[in-house]
């Protein structure tokens, strides 16, 4: 009987698969964070990072005096080495952000300026979208964030209200991303046929190079709704990030689309979250998404050749957005060319 009980206990204990655990100490939490990133972060190879070396460097900064705040600062500095806007460490007293993907560059966007000098505070807004037909006869649409839902009816009404415009400016500057399913919703309004929109892969194990084969995904045109098949100029800046970055990467491959402004901010990895023993949360890039050309856009999407434009601070002082002006001029020139041909 005793042997049977021991055998059953052994069977149950053996069947419980091992889960690594760390002590809830300064060192334990550091090691947990390092290991979670080591096993799940997806851009070590792409960015050429030696995570072992980085871990050693920052672990050496832990002393017997290191408290929770000190640990947070050491961990945040270590995470900054990933140069990834999708990486955050969340504690009860602070959340770490890597900001250099936008802070090292000109902002190239001033919404107040556009509202005051181009839209004259008179425009239609709803679901994160704001739009108006500009005096030059081109449509202007701003989309704040892919976190805001867009109603299909609102999109229909917007495109119908701009139907006299030969071209559309779609401003996604300062759009920090949000829900990637809305990228498909919006892109599908500009399609006349099915397109390969990109590919996604995932880690298949803890090794830095363990990835699945990229899985291609496709977008179809929204045949039941109003679509825009005329010229589109997409405006970008360094704060165009994550889902907005993916939106630009796909739009750029469409024949009637020109991307104007600055390189986007990147943010190409789909984020994943996990937890440390002390209860802090960590978010990081886990699944790389390839653009339709099969390229990673973690470092951003460049504007169309010849369309890299910065905002001129002096012109901005006088109420001029030189990126928006460049886009208007492109569409007006096209409009005049079309008129001449007709």
């Amino acid at each position, binding site marked *: 009987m005793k042997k049977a009980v021991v055998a059953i206990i052994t069977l149950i204990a053996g*069947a419980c698969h091992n889960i690594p655990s760390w002590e*809830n100490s300064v060192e334990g939490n550091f090691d947990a964070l390092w290991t979670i990133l080591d096993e799940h972060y997806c851009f070590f190879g792409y960015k050429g990072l030696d995570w072992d070396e980085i871990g050693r460097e920052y672990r050496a900064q832990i002393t017997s005096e290191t408290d929770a705040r000190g640990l947070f600062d050491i961990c945040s500095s270590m995470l900054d080495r990933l140069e990834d806007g999708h990486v955050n460490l969340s504690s009860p007293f602070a959340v770490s952000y890597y900001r250099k993907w936008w802070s090292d560059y000109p902002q190239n966007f001033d919404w107040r300026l556009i509202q005051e000098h181009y839209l004259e505070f008179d425009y239609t807004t709803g679901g994160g979208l704001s739009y108006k037909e500009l005096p030059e006869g081109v449509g202007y649409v701003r989309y704040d964030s892919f976190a805001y839902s867009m109603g299909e009816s609102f999109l229909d009404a917007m495109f119908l209200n701009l139907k006299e415009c030969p071209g559309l400016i779609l401003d996604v500057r300062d759009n920090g991303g949000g829900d990637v399913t809305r990228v498909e919703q919006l892109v599908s309004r500009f399609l006349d046929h099915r397109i390969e929109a990109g590919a996604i892969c995932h*880690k298949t194990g803890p090794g830095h190079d363990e990835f699945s084969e990229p899985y291609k995904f496709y977008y179809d045109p929204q045949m039941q709704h109003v679509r825009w098949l005329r010229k589109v100029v997409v405006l970008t800046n360094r704060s165009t990030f994550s889902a907005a970055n993916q939106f630009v990467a796909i739009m750029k491959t469409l024949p009637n689309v020109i991307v104007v402004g600055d390189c986007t901010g990147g943010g190409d990895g789909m984020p994943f979250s996990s937890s440390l*023993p002390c209860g802090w949360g960590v978010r990081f890039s*886990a699944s790389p998404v390839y653009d339709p050309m099969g390229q990673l856009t973690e470092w951003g999407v460049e504007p169309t050749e010849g369309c890299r434009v910065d905002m001129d601070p002096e012109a901005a002082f006088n109420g001029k957005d030189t990126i928006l002006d460049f886009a208007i001029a492109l569409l007006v020139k096209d409009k005049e060319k079309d008129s001449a041909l007709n």
Partner: protein
Amino acid sequence: MIRRFVVLFIAVVATIVPMFADDPEIMRPVYSAYMFEAGSSHLAETYLSPLHYDGWTIALAHRRAQAMRFNPLHWHMELGGRVSLDRTLARPARNVVEWRAELELDWSMMHKWRLEKGLKLYAGGFTRADAGVFYLARNGNNPVAAKASWTIGPKVGASYDGRLGRVPVALRYFAEMPLTGIFFSPAYGELYYEIYLGNRRGLVRGAWPGNYFRLDNTLTADFRFGATILRVGYAPRVFSSKTSDIVTRTVSHSFIFGVAQEWTAIGGTKPDTRVQNIISAY
């Protein structure tokens, strides 16, 4: 060839159908129990977090058992449904909540051996389908780990019919462990968004005790007060799966409180005088 197959099929059906035909002299009442369970829960789901979570679990369950038609004295079947909810806090920080919900349906058939002094032993097999979810609200892009499985395996048990004073008491113990089946799991770092995009390769995994271990134990005591039966019990359950380096573990200890009844449906307006024998499931 087809003719031979048809003849064989008819022969098999002709053999099996009488086994399931009702014997008018035997009545097989249904032993039906409704239960509430409450206890402690330990969860770990490394797709969401490497931490362990402790908290409580509650469940509502229904079980019905009936002797089989083909050999009511020695075989019975059970049909069960159970819905459970767990709320747990991360260990040791206890500042993150993880929820788990699960719906299970199972069917089992067991042979019964009647030993001396009210002791019976049971052995047979079961099949179970379940679907559930782990939910960690704090995880923005991966808050959910969905679970689903269909498994089969052996089920064994023992019961003892005795008395506590003047009250008839039935003590029963059953254990079941799936040996094979299929279960759902994304790959190591696969987001549900990728599945939404259409990549459904490799989501269904084969189960065996090495990658999918589950042991459900149920110990109950049924106190019969006339037509009503009061049930109390204890159910320790262990589950651990590992696939694509994702480990899922649930360990729970629940106390059971329930009521049961043994009933039979009598058709027509007159009692069936042919009934000679009433055979209970247990």
